[in-house]
């Protein structure tokens, strides 16, 4: 799942030259308000989950790993 998130980030959301890893701090490489909204939609489409505004926290979106953890918790609900 982490790799799928990294692919979304690299192909559709971020314009970043360095490779993104599961532990890359996304806020340090330009994950801004608009990018978060794009990412949210891509995640909802890819993983068939609904991300509520309350889920859009720094903690949940800090790294691809933390986003994957959020998706897993959503899928288990």
């Amino acid at each position, binding site marked *: 799942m982490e790799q799928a998130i990294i692919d979304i980030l690299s192909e559709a*959301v*971020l*314009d*970043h030259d360095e490779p993104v890893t599961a532990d890359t701090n996304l806020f340090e490489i*330009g994950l*801004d*308000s*608009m*990018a*978060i*909204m*794009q990412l*949210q*939609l891509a995640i909802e489409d890819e993983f068939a989950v609904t991300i509520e*505004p*309350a*889920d*859009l*926290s*720094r903690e949940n*979106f800090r790294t691809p790993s933390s986003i994957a953890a959020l998706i897993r918790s959503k899928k288990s609900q």
Partner: protein
Amino acid sequence: MIPATISDAFLLALESHMRRSGQGAHLSVTVVELSGAPDPDRLRATAGRLSARHPLLNARLRRGRDFVARWHPGEPSPVPVEIHPEGTVESLVTSLLDHPRIDIHAHGPNLELHALPIAPDRWALVLVWPHALFDAIGIDKLLAELDDPGDNRRDDWGETAKTEGSPAELWRTAKPMVEEMRSFPAWRVRSPHPKGRTAGPPRFELIRFTPAETAAIRERMAGNAGELLMLPYFATVAARATRAVLSGRHPDEDVPVLLSLPVQRTANPSKRPLFLNHMTAWSLMLEPGDFGDLGQTTKALHRKYAGFLRRGLPRAMDALMKLMARCPSRLYLKPAGFYLKGEICTLFHSHTGRFANGTDQLFGDRILDGFHVPTVSAPPGLGIFFSERSDRLTCTLSWREGSLSPDELELLAATLKADLLGPRSPNPPISREAS
């Protein structure tokens, strides 16, 4: 000649409308508050270097026989520098906007630098610039290179919209945005500028929040809409304040708000060019039923953003702008005016994030604060703009004289503050500076 971007073409049309209706040039002002005192020699050296480095600082913008807008660089001439021994930032900015010298239709400097001591150990650097030549990211990049001693000429412009194709292909791509515009007449969109009234000169007021107030605003945003939804949150706050004014004027109407929100096309700021405009405009309609409490309205606007993205409207808007780029300025705004009965949108709004991001000092002096003062056209006659620096949020209210009464301006500011800080604003009182 340097091709204008499709965003420049829109701004040229807007400026053409402003000039035809006696509103003058579409200028913006950026104020940087610095530690220390101004050094006139260093400022003049910087101004000369900038002019030699960037031919666009002396260029004019005009449409050719094919109606395509292009920048035509002129002979280098120094960027004007003026040292103002006394006064306030507000009076200086008002004076500069009331007596504009920059004219993008003619060759000549497209940038002015003004310096003003504002305290024994504090001064303000004031930049005047035409909106057709820079966007807010561009001005951040210009600030970042004021201290750069390099004399190499730079080619830092170019189109960032990726939409290509024949007119027929562009029309097919643009169709969803055209359909979106055709839905607008279902709502009676109004803006603060009263129809038929001649727009007066640009006016502005700053609402400068303290670090404690800014922290409270962030906390309230997190509680209402989540800590990361800055974009729809501040747009919602601006929309609600404007709606309060319009509802006061038209108490028997359910007032919608059509937002025109600039979105940068290039995600990575380091890859955005210094010059020209690289934003697409997202037109998002908040219908009367979308207005609940602050959290509900933010969620509604968030859904509108999502819908705009999901339906591919950003690409459609770019395709439409690409088609319109060949349209004479006089006709450019006609379709929008037709669907919106003479309006463009309800208000202009942006939150440009951290002011002068990545730049901590200029001329050896520390940046203490900063903000932009964009002027707006009428209609809509109002813009509400935010930026942050040093953990302080600044809100710039920008309007045309005649678009808002003093009471309406009070209501606008009070509604903004109530939404941002909560009904019970903390002490000390917010600094409010009017032009």
